């Protein structure tokens, strides 16, 4: 159940990775055959994630879901400059520190699925709230793109967004978008490719300084987490949650499913039946 994989640095995609083809290593819940990079699409509910997903993938999408998990997710594929990307549209989440099961699905994938690029879609009209998730994601990965979607709506409401200032503060590429009309899509593609291939580097967002006392506790706990789950990505994050007593992480540690829920194959649903609501 350990999650280990090749570095995925630079141009070494899944295929050139020395561990490619080894049965022990598989991207949790994803078929990675022939793909170079995996992209996770995260964001608050209602920010237009699925619109971005559709815009990136065209109509080549199918609905898959995680065995035992509770919410449907979508997967698709697209190419940028000949590189093949698989993209996972995660359920909407307000935070990585939450307890609803669909938010857990999103959280677990970002934390333990180790996507090559995490695209955080934020709503330009409710930026304050949306940035919570973006900041949490940027604390655990330096391979992220922030897509500021619904720029057209913000403009209509008289809100002006300085995406350059935002990029400076976040330390990650920020792409202004109006995904519904396809605006900003080429820029998003370029940013995804840049981060995936390593030509764009995010500045790791400094984890908050918690003081010497807490840091010492945290270091001891991180070590214990790694002893229990060798190679677990983001062990420090897990340790911090255990330290603050996050109920869902404590539960997963208790029943030994930490970093799980990503395993198994993707269940193909019959062409997702016509839906009444989105």
């Amino acid at each position, binding site marked *: 159940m350990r999650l280990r994989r090749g570095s995925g640095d630079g141009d070494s995609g899944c295929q050139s990775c020395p561990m490619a083809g080894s049965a022990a290593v598989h991207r949790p819940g994803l078929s990675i055959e022939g793909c170079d990079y995996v992209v996770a699409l995260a964001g608050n509910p*209602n920010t237009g994630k699925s619109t971005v997903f559709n815009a990136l993938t065209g109509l080549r999408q199918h609905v898959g879901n995680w065995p035992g998990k*509770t*919410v*449907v997710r979508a997967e698709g594929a697209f190419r940028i400059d000949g590189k093949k990307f698989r993209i996972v549209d995660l359920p909407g989440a307000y935070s990585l*520190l939450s307890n*609803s099961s*669909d938010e857990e699905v999103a959280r677990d994938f970002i934390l333990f699925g180790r996507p090559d690029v995490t695209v955080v879609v934020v709503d330009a*009209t409710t*930026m*304050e*709230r949306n*940035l*919570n998730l*973006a*900041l949490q994601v940027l604390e655990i990965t330096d391979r992220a793109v922030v897509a500021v979607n619904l720029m057209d*709506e913000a403009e*209509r*409401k*008289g*809100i*002006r*967004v*300085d*995406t350059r*200032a*935002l990029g400076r*503060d*976040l330390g990650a590429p920020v792409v202004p978008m109006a995904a*519904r009309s396809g605006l900003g899509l080429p820029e998003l593609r370029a940013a995804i490719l840049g981060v995936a291939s390593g030509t764009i580097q995010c500045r790791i967002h400094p984890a*908050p300084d*918690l003081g010497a*006392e*807490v840091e010492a*506790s945290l270091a*001891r*706990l991180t070590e*214990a987490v790694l002893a*229990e789950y060798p190679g677990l990505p983001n062990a420090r994050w897990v*340790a*911090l949650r*255990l*330290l*603050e*007593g*996050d109920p869902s992480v*404590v539960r997963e*540690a*208790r*029943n*030994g499913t930490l970093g799980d829920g990503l395993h198994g194959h993707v269940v193909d*649903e*019959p*062409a*997702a*039946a*016509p*839906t*009444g*609501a*989105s």
Partner: protein
Amino acid sequence: MSGSADHLLSLAEAERARLRTPLHDQLVERLYEEAGRIAARALDRSGEARRFQFDLLLDRILTSRILGLPAMAALFGGAFWLTIAGANIPSALLTSLLVDHGAALLHRAADAVHAPAWLQGLGIDGVYLAVAWVVSVMLPPMAIFFPIFTLLEDFGYLPRVAFNLDRTFRWAGAHGKQSLTMMMGYGCNAAGVVAARIIDSPRERLIAILTNNFSICNGRWPTLILISTIFVGASAPPAAASLAAALTVVTVAVLGIVVTLLVSAFLSRTLLRGTPSVFSLELPPYRPPRVWQTIYTSVIDRTLIVLWRAVQMAAPAGAVIWLISNVEVAHRSLAHWMALGLDPIGALIGLNGIILLAYVVAIPANEIVIPTILMLTLNAARSKLAQKGVMLELDDTATRHVLIHYGGWTLLTGVNLMLFSLLHNPCSTTIMTIWRETRSRKWTWLATLLPLALGFGVCFLTATAARTFGWAPR
């Protein structure tokens, strides 16, 4: 493993005990502060004052306690009226083209190559006609209704419906999000059942799954639209015909919501006792719908997919119908015997044996109920009139004629068919989905039989009442 997990957890607890300040609050506070700081630097809200007026005004009407529900009925009523009024002409055109001329042409071609009669019957009168009927009955209403529905969805109206219904669902002991899964059910019950995953509590999820069948799905809208057009619409003055038919469809849909709530309330007070959990639902801003894109995607993604599914189901069903109508046992066709056997039960609940037989044949897909009923009625009529091979024109008037004169239908039959369309077992796809989602035989059986029992019960009551008061022949 669990031993060392315990070790890990007790270590975490020990470390937590050392800390003086509650770490969680501290972390969350920092996060909010930083997000606020960054947003303040990046945003210029100076021009914001004049916004919102429109959104607020709309929400004041559409989610108002007093006006919310009437507005909802008016919007959906309008959508159905447009569908019914608009589908008439193209439907008649398609019927004439595919059913009348198409079948005749195929028969002539088959005669020219001396195809045997049984093959012509099976292929043309069975498979081809069933498919042609499904296409001409379903395509026009779907091609109108889906884009309208999708436009409402695109605009941001559907979450408002959930908002309007939330308090009622809580009264029923169900989760407020059930109104969303119910909405999904209006597209397809199987999708609605899967959508129940958005509900975290297993108790409330089960209630949502068990009641989803009371949302009228794609496969059933055409039945309702057709029957309300030819029975209710036709008995209203011509000018008001479409409106009367639309109101009838809305009434049945609203009845479906009432049944959903009553059954939910019943379940949450008996088999699935508990208190509803709290949730928050974010109302998205209204967005101007992208009209052309919506029309394109709803025609491609919904209409054609649903139609294709219906065609796939209709083709084998057409063969089955032709076979049971033409294989004779003791000088009567199998269909005749089956309908005869079901007739007493059918009569008891204001329907007839052919309708019940059609519901058995149509278990794989509700879409083919009406074509099946028409074909079985026609086949029965044909043998009665010894007119095998004679095609009847089937526009709305002709359909009405066939059902009333050859099928012996009354207004009661039409009304009860609409009620039965709302209240009967889910289609086999949905039953499979319920099994997959619940992994429980008990709940799958309950979900299958409960609506059927309700359907028999309600239809029996209306039939008895109608006969007692002399509204329908005994």
